[in-house]
């Protein structure tokens, strides 16, 4: 049955979720060496509190938060700190991190701390507990959750949006978490409602996940102001701004935050983790990751200790010989990987592996025929056609000043629909990078 999309633009790629959505979450073993970066979130890196040679329990504090926009890092396994040194990261640069060698026969038991009891804790204490647990947005952005909850004076949350709209193809982590951790989500939601004093909460899911959302609703005790909204499946509905548009028919002002329209948006897996960790005073040491794609022998959802090297993870699930491409996240926005030696961190919700068959590697490119498909598909109503033309002429300043390049969040819809196969979003990324470099240069000049 066809239903009208709840926001303008977007695309409907093949979902490819059937392979993994029916499979229960499986626990991963420990890799022989875990790579735990100090920066796994948006903000300032954590400060290490252990030394080389220290022995730690699973869940013990490895690094403490450095200020407001930072979260601590906990030991993903019981083991010995081998080194504190540089390690490879997703972005390509080497970053500071802790090499942790799990003890042989280490258990999955996590050390408990001082619990934060829902009925006794104040709003401020709950927010502090969320920071102490090291919780960040598990949907991908890895923005510290407590920072969203510490509101500037005068701002109020009217609607707490629990984001279960998993719009990227292949990924089913949020779906599995909703199916298997309904009680955790319920508890997490109650913590959050208390912490931000929201009037109501809504769990937003796409068509394919209606059953999971219904399960969460069933587990909710009476009196909690929760409703479920099932939206027609449409990429990139899970993007915060578009979800707000779909649910509230309101737009977050450019340069503003969801709270400007009274909304607070938190990923459903993050909510589940809050409900799972806070009562026991634990820190986050693992997360659910979808590993899927045609090059994976045993696709599914796995609970993986943070810091597990990707290579180890891929060996566990088995790879086809023809593996040619791995990216983190879904195929629409997923970051490509040059190396398999990077660790799984808090913001990684899945990875997908392709064989050459999926690539369409040498697809030719045609000239832009001005068809306007990209303009219709752009969920934030930019003009990718014009932006692409300007990018190819190096007019990056015009792109920003007259065509609002800053508003592009690189969802990739324009490149997905382009019949000329022009790499539009890729050109926009390059243009943004050039603008960043130019602004860095002018700042340098000013300093001298």
């Amino acid at each position, binding site marked *: 049955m066809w239903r009208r999309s709840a926001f303008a633009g977007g695309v409907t790629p093949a979902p490819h979720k059937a392979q993994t959505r029916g499979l229960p979450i499986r626990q991963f073993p420990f890799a022989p060496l875990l790579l735990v970066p100090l920066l796994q979130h948006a903000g300032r890196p954590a400060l290490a509190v252990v030394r080389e040679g220290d022995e730690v329990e699973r869940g013990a504090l490895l690094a403490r938060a450095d200020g407001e926009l930072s979260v601590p890092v906990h030991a993903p396994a019981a083991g010995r700190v081998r080194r504190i040194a540089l390690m490879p990261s997703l972005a390509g640069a080497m970053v500071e991190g802790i090499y942790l060698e799990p003890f042989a026969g280490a258990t999955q038991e996590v050390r408990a701390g001082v619990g934060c009891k829902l009925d006794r804790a104040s709003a401020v204490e709950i927010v502090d507990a969320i920071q102490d647990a090291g919780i960040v947005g598990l949907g991908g952005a890895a923005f510290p959750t407590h920072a969203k909850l510490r509101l500037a004076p005068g701002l109020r949350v009217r609607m707490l949006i629990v984001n279960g709209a998993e719009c990227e193809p292949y990924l089913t982590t949020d779906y599995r978490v909703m199916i298997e951790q309904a009680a955790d989500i319920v508890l997490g939601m109650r913590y959050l409602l208390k912490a931000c004093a929201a009037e109501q909460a809504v769990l937003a899911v796409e068509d394919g996940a209606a059953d999971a959302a219904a399960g969460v609703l069933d587990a909710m005790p009476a009196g909690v102001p929760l409703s479920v909204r099932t939206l027609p499946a449409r990429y990139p509905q899970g993007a915060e701004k578009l979800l707000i548009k779909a649910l509230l028919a309101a737009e977050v002002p450019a340069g503003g935050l969801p709270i400007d329209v009274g909304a607070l948006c938190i990923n459903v897996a993050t909510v589940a983790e809050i409900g799972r960790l806070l009562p026991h005073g634990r820190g986050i040491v693992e997360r659910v990751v979808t590993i899927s794609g045609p090059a994976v022998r045993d696709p599914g959802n796995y609970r993986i200790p943070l810091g597990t090297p990707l290579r180890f993870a891929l060996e566990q699930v088995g790879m086809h010989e023809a593996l040619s491409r791995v990216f983190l996240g879904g195929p629409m926005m997923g970051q490509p990987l040059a190396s398999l030696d990077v660790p799984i961190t808090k913001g990684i919700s899945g990875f997908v592996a392709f064989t050459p068959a999926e690539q369409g590697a040498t697809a030719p490119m045609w000239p832009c025929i*001005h068809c306007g498909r990209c303009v219709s598909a752009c969920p934030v109503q930019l003009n990718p056609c014009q932006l692409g033309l300007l990018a190819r002429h190096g007019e990056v300043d015009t792109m920003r000043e007259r065509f609002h390049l800053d508003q592009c969040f690189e969802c990739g819809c324009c490149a997905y629909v382009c019949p000329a196969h022009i790499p539009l979003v890729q050109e926009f990324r390059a243009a943004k990078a050039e603008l960043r470099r130019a602004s860095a240069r002018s700042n340098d000049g000013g300093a001298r």
Partner: protein
Amino acid sequence: MNRRRAGLAIAPAPHVHGGTAVPWVMLHVVIALLPVCLFACYVFGLAALAILVVATLSCVLAERLCVRSGVSTLGDGSALVTGLIYGLTLPPALPLWMVAVGGGVAIVIGKCLFGGLGGNAFNPALVGRVFLQAAFPAAMTGCWLAPLTEGRFSALPATTLAWPLLAPVDGSYDILSGATPLGAWKFAGVDTPLVDLVLGFSAGSTGETSAVLLFVGGLYLVMMRVVEWRIPVALLGSVALVSAGLHLHDAARHPDVLTVLCSGGLMIGAWFMATDPVASPLTAAGAWTYGLAIGLLVVLIRAASGQPEGVMYAILLGNAVAPHIDRWLQPRPYGMRGRRR
């Protein structure tokens, strides 16, 4: 494992594609035009077939010669589409050498000089046709054929095979012509039965006569999301509204709405030429504006000029303002309501 380590392909997201491609777009236009072409050959016989073949070949050949050696742009299919549409807009008994010259002009001046596919400001097929209109006005307004003549499958009209630059046999244009319905109405006050206009059993350009087949082809393109539906809807809608008003005002001078919609080049223009993506606006608001403007121009030229038909000029003028429409009607980005651009 070693082989894999070396073999990871790195490409930025998105890692999947929706699957449309430029040749796919062109292929659908050809599919939508096939019934029209077959019908033209049935109604006008060998003459129509010869026109379509020569028009298509001349466009394809011109494109091949224009692009530097070693590169072929024929694979995108746009020259084929231009050639077919161009052929369908020509009078069926037009001398074939003129067809070939106009085809060359369409591709060389209409497209390649602008930088090839995607660069042209005007619809190339119409550039070819407007050139012929200016260069050979007598032939372009006289080489009509009456529909369904005897012997149309066995012989070509005398004008078709005329030698280049030699005037065809005196008066042969007049011998041939069944006047087009619009010309008959404008100059002689003769009404063509509506059923013939709808089905296409009337004199006219090779592929413009059958309103119903063009409409079906256009619907197919809309359903395949190949063309912007707002353009034909705005264009035909504005023509219908204004014509209805004119007809009510003075039924003796202005034909009724259905006759207006089904006659001349309106249907082929609205569905297949005004919708040329390269020369039409990008946004939904732009498409409405552009269709509306062309529709008003069509009515104006038909009603107030010395010519019976104005679709060609109306679309070319629409093409000329399309970039300006794009500039005026930029989309409003998310979260920027009420802000100055």
